[in-house]
């Protein structure tokens, strides 16, 4: 069998996402088996800490002799690992870390499946501008690498598109009370509220927005917490909220099939982390299998092959200063009737119409 | 009333008591004298179960104390006023005294006992609201004795009650001890003020390096040559 190393945040603060990624990995292994590719995945936990990630890569690269590595999840760990993979000459496929630099430093052995951070913001703002004529935007985001770099790009892009940035609030996650921040936002009266936050803070932010009656033309959610099944379920607050995502189940029949099988198996909707991991494992394993496990050849294959699957066409190429970067067209969804519906770009929307402006709280 | 037999005790590797026999009869004042480190306080701590004996037996009113916890011993009427006072530093004088009568059985007498303490130690009455920790050394000593009295003790163990008291008050304290005793409380006293304490006690023991070397009535021991030389400096 081909040996694939898989570095993931099994424990630590990122564990919830790590778990969905493990699920994605397991689906991929099963599907590969059906296709006659026997994969042995060697798991390593990085606990969300870069020094542990280094331990992990060393063990995988020199001890377990894997042909290719998938992971790690967080940008911090991925950054620490990237340099090592260059040294050990083993390809690393990053499934879902957003830090742009990872595929901008010209690393030869580092590949990335998901779209880097800048795409999130651009897609959302493009979508909003296509629905209506907003004049101003407020940013509220978690002060993490993901949150702050996303909104940094977002602010630059918004200004370029003629929007006025009326508020810029980074917050520390883990506080039960964002009401005052939201009140301040409300006082600034923005047309768009651009939010970036992890899983459950998204729900908190929307609940408290409802409480204090914040009512812009649109709530734009920058992926992550706004793109989860839990958020979807909270219909009272999620309805009409937009979110950008790496992947939607309704984008293709393959995706829909994946969605069904995943939901049946794990009892919840797959997040894009799961989908991206699934895709990353598939491409890594197929590249390695075709290379007979040889690391250099595996790298060659990753750089040249293309895949068609649940994320459409996957190819790790060079564009806009990125290298070995899969070019993802990020869809924008809107929660309508308790479900995420793709509303942008029109090519993926399949006729669904966005509700714009926000009609108000029920 | 209190019967200690062949009590042995060690702190870790350090053996302190080497088989002490000692008894206190109802109504008595019994004093234990001995040099520093002889183990006097250790005997009292064993009685009040702050430390648990290695071997030997302690019975109080016929009941074996092995197996009992400190607070259970107190409930039986055996109350210790510890060495170094051990006042609750962040409680006021009144609160400290109140804790003395924590046990439900003593609560009905609380007010009466408190009045009695204030009349024995007027200084405490003047300082009802002062925090225990800020009282002077001697004041704390008064508070500690007063607190012990609040518990309606049957047997009161006093560990160096005169320590740090002014001469006038030292005399007072021995008067007070006699008075308490006369009111029906049996007393086991540990004192460095050998002269005064032997004077008021019915019986006394001399402890040397963890062994009882002498015992007798107070006056007897006062006349004893060894006691005179070793403790009275005569």
């Amino acid at each position, binding site marked *: 069998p081909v040996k694939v190393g898989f570095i993931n945040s099994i424990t630590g603060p990122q564990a919830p996402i790590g778990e969905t990624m493990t699920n994605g990995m397991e689906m991929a292994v099963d599907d590969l088996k059906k296709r006659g590719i026997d994969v042995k995945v060697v798991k390593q936990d990085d606990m969300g800490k870069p020094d542990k990630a280094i331990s992990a890569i060393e063990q995988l690269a020199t001890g377990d002799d894997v042909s290719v590595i998938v992971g790690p999840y967080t940008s911090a760990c991925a950054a620490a690992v990237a340099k090592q993979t260059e040294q050990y000459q083993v390809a690393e496929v990053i499934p879902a870390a957003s830090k742009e630099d990872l595929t901008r430093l010209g690393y030869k052995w580092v590949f990335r499946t998901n779209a880097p951070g800048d795409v999130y913001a651009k897609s959302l703002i493009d979508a909003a501008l296509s629905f209506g004529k907003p004049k101003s935007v407020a940013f509220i985001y978690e002060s993490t690498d993901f949150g702050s770099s996303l909104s940094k790009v977002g602010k630059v892009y918004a200004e370029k598109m003629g929007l006025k940035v009326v508020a810029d609030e980074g917050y520390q996650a883990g*506080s039960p009370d964002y009401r005052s921040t939201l009140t301040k936002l409300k006082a600034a009266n923005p047309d768009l509220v651009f939010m970036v936050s992890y899983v*459950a803070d998204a729900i*908190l932010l929307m609940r408290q927005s409802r409480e204090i009656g914040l009512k812009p033309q649109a709530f734009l959610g920058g992926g992550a917490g706004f793109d989860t099944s839990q958020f979807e*379920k909270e219909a009272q607050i999620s309805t009409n909220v937009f979110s950008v995502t790496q992947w939607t189940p309704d984008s293709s029949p393959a995706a829909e099939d994946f969605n069904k099988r995943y939901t049946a198996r794990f009892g919840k909707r797959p997040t894009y982390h799961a989908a991206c991991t699934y895709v990353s494992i598939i491409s890594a394993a197929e590249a390695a299998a075709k290379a007979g496990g040889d690391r250099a050849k595996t790298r060659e294959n990753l750089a040249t092959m293309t895949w068609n699957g649940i994320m459409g066409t996957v190819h790790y190429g060079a564009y806009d200063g990125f290298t070995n970067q899969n070019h993802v067209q990020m869809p924008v969804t809107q929660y309508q009737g308790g479900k995420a519906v793709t509303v942008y770009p029109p090519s993926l929307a399949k006729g669904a119409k966005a509700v714009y402006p926000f009609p108000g709280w029920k | 009333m209190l019967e200690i037999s062949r009590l042995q005790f060690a702190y870790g590797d350090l053996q302190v008591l080497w088989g002490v026999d000692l008894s206190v009869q109802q109504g008595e004042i019994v004093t234990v004298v001995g040099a520093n480190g002889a183990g006097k306080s250790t005997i009292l701590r064993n009685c009040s179960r702050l430390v648990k004996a290695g071997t030997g037996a302690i019975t109080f009113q016929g009941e074996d104390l092995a197996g009992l916890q400190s607070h259970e011993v*107190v409930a039986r009427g055996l109350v210790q006023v510890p060495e170094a006072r051990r006042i609750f*530093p962040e*409680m006021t004088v009144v609160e400290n005294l*109140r804790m003395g009568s924590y046990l439900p059985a003593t609560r009905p007498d609380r007010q009466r006992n408190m009045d009695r303490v204030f009349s024995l130690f007027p200084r405490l009455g003047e300082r009802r609201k002062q925090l225990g920790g800020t009282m002077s050394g001697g004041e704390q000593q008064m508070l500690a004795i007063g607190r012990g009295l609040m518990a309606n003790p049957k047997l009161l163990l006093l560990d160096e009650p005169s320590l740090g008291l002014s001469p006038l008050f030292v005399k007072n304290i021995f008067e007070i001890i006699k008075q308490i005793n006369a009111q029906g409380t049996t007393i086991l006293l540990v004192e460095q003020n050998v002269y005064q304490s032997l004077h008021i006690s019915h019986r006394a023991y001399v402890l040397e390096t963890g062994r009882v070397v002498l015992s007798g009535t107070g006056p007897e021991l006062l006349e004893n040559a060894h006691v005179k030389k070793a403790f009275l400096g005569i």
Partner: protein
Amino acid sequence: MIVFFQSLISGILVGGIYALIGIGLTIIFGVMRVINFAHGDLLMLGMYATWLLFKYLGLDPYVALVVTMPLLFLWGALLQKVIINRVLGALPQNQILLTIGLGLIMSNSVMLLFTSDYRILTTSYSSSSFSLLGISISQPLLYSFLVTVAITGVLFWFLQTTDTGQAIRATAQDRDAAQLMGINVKRMSVLAFGLGTALAGTAGALLAPTYYIFPQVGGPFTLKAFVVVVLGGMGSIVGATLGGVLIGVTESMAAVYVGSGLKELVVYVLFLLILLFRPAGLLGKSRA
């Protein structure tokens, strides 16, 4: 102006919950001189208990308090009796590490049992509010605040006036001496830890309808509880209440007038400033 009052009100209401967490910690510290680093994890247990009762029995979180409080009390008492009791005489740093270890055990056991997924408990009033002169007042927060006020009052009365309450304080100050007063100090510790745990759990239950639940949720609350307690003066219930509200308001105001990212920073700076001028906290007895 509306912004000011809005943030003041929500600061006070959230401060109520902080106060409750702080009171639990202060009682534990007060009696056992143990800084409980597992406090947030006890709160987390309270949240899970509430969530389970809501999910499987459909019990409203506030109603469920009658179950969660005693449950957490028992859990705390058990922890104390079996484990923490053994380190009461130990060095403070050992106690700190012991509670850290216990916290790790609790959060990771919960993770094994319930996975690390975020749980959301949505009640009909989870995002409802009253409106008062243009200021919105969160319904769940208001309920929580009232519960907190009631609990604080009862506790204060208990500790200041009952003999058991005084005995808890006495135990805190000198365990040996307390034993000599006939106080069963082990029982007092069990009582105190049970109470502290129950309060942490209650805070968790009160947070549950408006917050989210996951195994590691406790960490930030532990820190917050420390700040609350030290600010108010360790061992002081009134101090913790004051500290909680003060911190709630400071956070809220700082988020508006300084910046959302800086609100915690402002809180810590305030904390240090107060300690500089009042080393024993606002209501602490300043004795070395």
